[in-house]
């Protein structure tokens, strides 16, 4: 067992900050992967529809970026972690 009284408080603070940074990284990373999984099918479908009719460009783009909100949620969580804690 390590005696708590001998641990340098500066080291503890640095360690906690590091953990927060890792948490923020995981939040953005996983949210990005989730958004990508959602987007792959929608993107493929949008390209398919556009290949037939260019008028689908607007709709296709809109549909493709909808799962992007998940990535934004991840970003928000990461920002909260970094700046609030």
């Amino acid at each position, binding site marked *: 067992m390590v005696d708590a009284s001998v641990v340098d408080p500066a080291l503890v603070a640095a360690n906690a900050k590091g953990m927060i940074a890792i948490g923020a990284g995981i939040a953005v990373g996983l949210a990005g992967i989730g958004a990508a*999984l959602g987007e*792959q*099918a*929608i993107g*493929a*479908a*949008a*390209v*398919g*529809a556009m*290949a*037939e*009719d260019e008028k*689908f460009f607007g709709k296709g783009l809109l549909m493709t970026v909808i799962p992007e909100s998940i990535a934004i949620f991840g970003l928000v969580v990461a920002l909260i972690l970094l700046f609030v804690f």
Partner: protein
Amino acid sequence: MGSTVKYAYIVARVRAMKGKLIPKEMYPKFLNMEIPEITRFIGESEYKNDVEELGKKYSGTDLFEHALNQNLALTYRKLIEVSQNEANFLITEYLRSWDIWNIKTIIRGKFSGAKEEEILEDLVSAGHLGYRDLLEIIKVGTIEGVIAAFERTPYYPALVGFKGNLAEIENNLDRMYYSNIIKAAEDTGNKLFLKFLRTEIDLKNLKMLFRMKRAGMERDEINKLLIPGGMELKANDLTRLSSLAFPEFVRALEEYSYWKAIADISSEFTSLINIETRLDKYGLVYASRISYYYPLSVLPILDYILSKKIEVDNLRIIVRGKETALPEDIIKAHLVM
């Protein structure tokens, strides 16, 4: 997850293509038009390129017929070209029915001594056999020569025993097509494709049963021609139905879900056209309905293939009917809409 993603591209594309089909509200309008007007309309629609390309070679209803067939073949070929993996395999297998159609057309044509031009008019090179190959085969003079020309194709075993009985090899070809495609579907494990196929076999068998019952054929003869592997009409159902007399046969059909397609005309089963049109419509509605239940599967593609074929058939019926000055209600009875 993976299976839905791989269909996303082709399904969206096919849905967009389906949106460009002629809406069914147009058909009654076509009935009020003259042939040149219809040709002009078609020449400004999705068939534009085909009409312009063939316009130098043909005119009138011949132009119409060739343009429709060419467009159908090119549309189906496009589906094969833009699809990948499982979808590509299933579409290719399914479109082999056009190879069967072409082989039948050529052999029938040769059998009845039709001219090369006449046979060519009915060919749709949407399957594996390309237009150029078919052109070469048409030039062969005899049926035996035609059959020998198919030697390197997978259809040869069904043709090789030809001894002058046209119905037999046509039936062999049909059975071969369905047994091969069911095997292909089972290999991929695609249950939805299999379900669609089995329903199609049922409808085909029903149509044949109606025709053969009306013609008063014997049970054994009928059984030989029916295609095994249906969804509701299993082998024992088919044997039972084929042994009944026409009125009992009609009554026995009430047990099956297909009855609702023809129930409202049950009092006037004298005309086969009505029944066949209803069954075709049932197939079309069924395909469209299940394609909405399973939007990211092979079903929307099959639905499109069917809808496109029916569009071309309808247009041909209208123009041919107009050409021979058939009354409007008779033309209408043939339309699937």
